[in-house]
């Protein structure tokens, strides 16, 4: 009996704390400029397996996970995987960096307001990197503070693409 109560308590604890919205429509309603100043609406990627990654050039762990994102985008892009980066950063620094690494997905510029935005999706520490995964039906299936490991990413690709 005690075991059952403990198990239930642990299960509840794992799910407690900030509950990010499950509906991705608020996220998809957002519009931000890209590094060239062109406004991009996230709604254009509705129906994709969307990986929205908040990052910055001043965030070393953010930069560490991006080469893997570039590889996955190249491999699964035509099957419906779509990465979108939202940089909390200076557009010029973003422009230089994405050229250097050959970024093959959109880099939008969010500034400090992007951190505030990410808070509404569960980024309680206002830190980076922060990633939101939206399935093809527009539901938020995962939020991640800290690097998204390749095995984790592949798990979502296998299940939802």
């Amino acid at each position, binding site marked *: 009996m005690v075991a059952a109560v403990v*198990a*239930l308590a642990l299960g509840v604890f*794992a*799910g407690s704390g900030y509950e*990010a919205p*499950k509906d991705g429509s608020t996220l998809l309603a957002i519009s931000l400029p890209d590094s060239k100043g062109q406004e991009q609406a996230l709604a254009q990627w509705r129906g994709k397996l969307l990986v929205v990654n908040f990052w910055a050039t001043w965030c*070393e762990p953010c930069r560490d996970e991006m080469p893997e994102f570039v590889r996955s985008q190249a491999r699964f892009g035509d099957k419906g995987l779509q990465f979108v980066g939202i940089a909390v950063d200076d557009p010029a620094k973003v422009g230089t960096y994405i050229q250097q690494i050959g970024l093959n997905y959109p880099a939008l510029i969010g500034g400090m307001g992007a951190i505030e935005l990410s808070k509404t999706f569960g980024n*309680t520490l206002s830190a980076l990197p922060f990633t939101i995964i939206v399935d093809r039906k527009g539901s938020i299936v995962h939020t991640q503070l800290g690097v998204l490991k390749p095995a984790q990413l592949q798990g979502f690709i296998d299940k939802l693409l």
Partner: protein
Amino acid sequence: MNRAEVARRRSAHATIVVIASLAAPIVALALAVPADLARAADLLPPERAFPFSALASGPQTVEARFNVPDGYYLYRDKIRFQVEPASAGLAPLELPAGKLKHDEFFGDVATYRGLLKVDLVLKSAAPGQRILIKAEAQGCADAGICYPPIVQTATVTLPAGSVVPPEAPKKSWFN
């Protein structure tokens, strides 16, 4: 109830408990929004990762401190101070060298861990003046996250009284 019935009830009860213990976490997790909360639970909010304090250390000096716990670090080039009133005259900072960390993109970057002390010199501050110290810092956790710049403040009251320290008694070898 006879013994056999009691035994059967107990066995059924035990089975229910086992099934419940297995099912409960699965049900709870299925209902929860999957978020990597285990990591977030271990990480400190920025004001606890980079706690700032300041105390007057002389008539025109303030010792500013960041007491960074294990597992966190600050970037030297992102440390900024401002004072109010600005007329107190904050002199250019002399920051400790820190420890170099190699960064793929930025090259060697100086960082601080543990207790960082910075002496702030207020060239035109008056005795007994109340000064607001604004400190901006930016850092990361070894666990793999970085915080945006955080601004923290502290108020210090400079000591009142004479600026000139008492003279030490003169020693002479001839008397």
